[in-house]
């Protein structure tokens, strides 16, 4: 592994200059390394970060990757890691023109990392440096505690997808509006909602009343508002004062909860485990936005490498070579999904729409398809608009907002499903739907979406940890429940319970079922409670009470 040579570095600097002129924003320093395929194989289980802590599962992955490479050799592409300064890895045998294309791609990734708000918490965080410190910490612990360090890492990682990533983000992205009085905050945020549990129309009515008072009496508005409120709720003042005295406990995710409250982890001899868990948790949070912006990030990079490459005066004469590589990366497959292709087309489409002023109520109200096509307000604000999209969206909002029928029809997209043809013994892939609604759903179903699992301190036996999986019409992967809960039990040091939903197995067997014809079978959900006690898992059914 070595830095790219001066000649190539100069090409990179040229790319940076041009990318900046086009509007991309990123820090000056970057590091580019040449790596071999072998290096890539070894780094990929560590999310390409050489300094990430060692863990045996990574070794297993490397061995597996090597075996796979032996059978199916392939050339990995470029990789960028989001750190400060950003580091990217390349193959050593790329011609200059290809490097130009790849550099633009990489620069757009860096721009994305450093401007998209979902990466906010990574902006002032030196990942490689921190990772190195963590790696040393874990190596040191391992020399003292042996394989128990690996168990703690294992159990930590088994719940590291439940980290409170959005809580972390919201802490950083608090709106900076001047805060209103505490009493007012309490009244509207806590009292009406949690204490009184008023109906929505009552709540809205109170807000209107407040605005009214404010308008009428100005400075004294709040006072007069509360004077009336006091009449209606005589206890208000007392509970408010009481609330000031009780300390607000910040919302904790499962890992934080374990670190804070686990009797086992807080024993003196086990406190070292918490530092290991903290490392696992931080690493997970760091990578959360990466998984949630895959389509956007790749689309953004593809959009820019195409645009900037074609404008670059240094590579004249390689348009055909470029076209071939570019098409390979960004073609829409007949069957299958390509995030590069999809994201790039979305960005181009959005830019075009914003250029014509189509992202407006006026356009949305148009029903006539001919008029929709012809519509052009001449706003020419497309570029500016996609920069805003790159700043404020993640894959979910991106798809949910911009994949509409025009987009699906325009690119001839459809949802594919497969069915078994018994006669020919083949899987048939067929066009299931060309509706934007279905296409959007299919896309969203492929996105990363960890289950929402929260701690309910009120439920469960004494000393047990009671977890509640929020029902989203998706069951958990059954085979994984036992081992995951065993890990939590270990970290908690006591019984762990998990409330989740499962699909009731259909009562009728296959024969009567197929006789019933093609009628879609009804999915029956059943709330169940798993209990992990002394490393034994049991399951009971929960009666629907609410």
């Amino acid at each position, binding site marked *: 592994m070595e830095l790219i040579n001066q000649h190539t570095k100069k090409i990179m600097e040229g790319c940076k200059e041009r990318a900046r002129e086009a509007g991309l924003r990123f820090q000056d320093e970057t590091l580019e390394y040449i790596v071999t395929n072998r290096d890539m194989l*070894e780094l990929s289980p560590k999310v390409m970060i050489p300094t990430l802590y060692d863990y045996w599962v990574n070794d297993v992955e490397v061995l597996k990757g090597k075996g796979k490479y032996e059978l199916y050799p392939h050339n990995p592409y470029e990789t960028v890691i989001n750190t400060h300064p950003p580091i990217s890895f390349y193959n050593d045998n790329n011609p*200059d023109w290809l490097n130009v294309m790849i550099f633009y791609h990489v620069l757009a990734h860096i721009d994305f990392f450093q401007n998209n708000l979902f990466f906010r918490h990574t902006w002032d965080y*030196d990942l490689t440096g921190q990772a*190195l410190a963590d790696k040393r910490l874990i190596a040191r612990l391992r020399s003292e505690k042996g394989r128990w360090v690996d*168990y703690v890492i294992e159990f930590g990682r088994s719940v590291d997808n439940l980290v409170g990533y959005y809580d972390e983000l919201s802490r950083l992205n608090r709106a900076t509006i001047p805060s209103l009085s505490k009493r007012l905050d309490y009244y509207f945020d806590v009292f009406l909602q949690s204490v009184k549990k008023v109906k929505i129309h009552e709540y809205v009515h109170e807000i209107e009343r407040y605005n009214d008072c404010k308008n009428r009496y100005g400075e004294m508005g709040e006072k007069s508002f509360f004077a009336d409120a006091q009449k209606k709720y005589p206890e208000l003042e007392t509970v408010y004062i009481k609330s000031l005295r009780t300390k607000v406990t910040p919302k904790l995710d499962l890992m934080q909860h374990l670190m804070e409250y686990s009797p086992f982890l807080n024993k003196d001899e086990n406190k070292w485990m918490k530092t290991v868990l903290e490392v696992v948790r931080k690493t997970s949070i760091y990578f959360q936005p990466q998984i949630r912006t895959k389509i956007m990030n790749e689309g953004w990079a593809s959009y820019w490498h195409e645009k900037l490459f074609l404008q670059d005066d240094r590579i004249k004469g390689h348009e055909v070579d470029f076209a071939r590589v570019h098409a390979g990366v960004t073609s829409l497959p007949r069957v299958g999904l390509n995030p590069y292709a*999809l994201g790039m087309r979305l960005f181009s489409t959005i830019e075009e729409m914003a250029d014509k002023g189509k992202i407006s109520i006026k356009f949305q109200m148009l029903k006539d398809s001919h008029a929709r096509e012809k519509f052009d307000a001449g706003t020419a604000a497309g570029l500016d608009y996609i920069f805003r999209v790159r700043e404020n969206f993640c894959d979910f909002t991106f798809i949910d907002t911009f994949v509409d029928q025009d987009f699906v029809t325009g690119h001839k997209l459809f949802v594919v499903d497969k069915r078994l043809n018994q006669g020919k013994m083949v899987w*048939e892939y067929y066009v299931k739907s060309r509706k934007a609604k279905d296409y959007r759903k299919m896309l969203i179903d492929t996105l990363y979406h960890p289950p929402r699992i929260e701690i309910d301190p009120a439920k469960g036996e004494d000393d047990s940890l009671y977890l509640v999986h929020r029902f989203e019409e998706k069951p958990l992967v059954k085979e*994984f429940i036992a081992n995951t809960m065993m890990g939590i039990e270990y970290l908690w040091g006591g019984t762990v319970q998990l409330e989740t939903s499962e699909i009731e197995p259909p009562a009728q067997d296959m024969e009567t079922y197929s006789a019933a014809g093609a009628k879609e079978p009804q999915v029956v959900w059943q709330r169940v409670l798993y209990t992990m006690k002394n490393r034994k898992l049991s399951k009971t059914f929960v009666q629907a009470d609410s």
Partner: protein
Amino acid sequence: MSDPKAHLTNIKGQGLPPDRKERLLSELHDEGSQDPVDHASEDISGEERLDGYDNFSAIEASPTLQGTYTMRIRSIDELLERDKMREKDGFPRKIRVGKLVKPARGGKEKFVVVPTTVEEKFLHDRVTTPTGEGEPTGGTGEGEEGEVVGEQPVRPEGGEGEGAAGGGEGESHEMESSAYDLGKILTEKFELPNLKDKGKKSSLTRYTYHLTDKNRGFGQLLDKKATLRKILETNINLGNVPDITDIDTTRFLISPKDKIYRILSREIDYESQALVFFLRDYSGSMAGKASELVVSQHVMIYSWLLYQFARQVESRFILHDNQAKEVPDFHTYYNLQVAGGTKVATAYRLVNEIVERESLAKDYNIYVFHGTDGDDWDTEGSEAIPELKKMLTYSNRVGITIAEHGYSAAGNTEVERYLNQSGLLKEKPELLRLDVMGEDAEEPRLIEGIKKLIS
């Protein structure tokens, strides 16, 4: 070239210059001098400043980047050793040894042994309905809703999944060596039973010594007749025998080279070689998981036997639906898929015929492994059972695996029923084994199955 901008416009004006490569390079070199100075200096200072970044100098210095990372990756053996410790600590094992197979024609498929593991988490699963179609995905292009846009054989012919065909000529022994590794790991990791000494000598590479070879000059036993003949021959050539009717032996010259001895020689004992018949039901009902399961298990059994018998294993592959046929290599055995009825008896009969025709029974330890989903048109087994009985007279072990379909009631397949009724399982537990599993059984279950079949 002194003015890069003029140079650029020059190029642009020319369109496609013939010496474009040269020009491109020179232009790219030029770019540096054209760059504002601060950029170029920034570049260098950027790297110099690295030393100022504590962490980065640390990265550079850390051994991870010096190529020693590989050295620190644990080998499969070490990982397995570690995995064993888990049981002691009260946690289930996590590493599985799997194999990647890249099938190819002519028995040249490549096996690679790899460890795998799963990091269990709470993850969302797909909602599966009994009619469950595949996982929907995206597509592009023409086609009405409902139109079929592509087909894929249930069992792909040309290898699984990604990867272009070709690439790297696999030596045939390469597969053997990797399968051998797999066998070794299976034996050690999963504590599969070592083969029992079945009254014969356990070594399969044993040799016997016979005075069968002849050697001139020295040896263990003088072959008088042959020696005399040789001496006579030499002396005829020397002209010492003028009259063939009146031989004067006293005039003979006797060369040491003419003495013929019998000498002890190593003879490979063919008797203790192993021959394995792999039988697979490839009828229509076997499509999908059931076949997958049977084939995986047979790969493992094959590997394991290869290890146990120190590679002295020969294997024969037989496929059957309502007819049986022998196929030449594992590739064909692995890949062939036909929709047809099922008659188990045909396969058994074919094995018996082969054994008889080539009189294999006296030279080989014979193992027969049969994988099926339990379907048989011969519901009573009236043909299969007699063939099976015959097979049991010469084979060391017959192992039958039934991969039951999810939709049929457990323990209710034809094969299982008639095997139970025949009483053979109880009568000859040493020779005949049956293992029944669900078609979605996982690898550990497969290994359990192997234990059951061969212990």
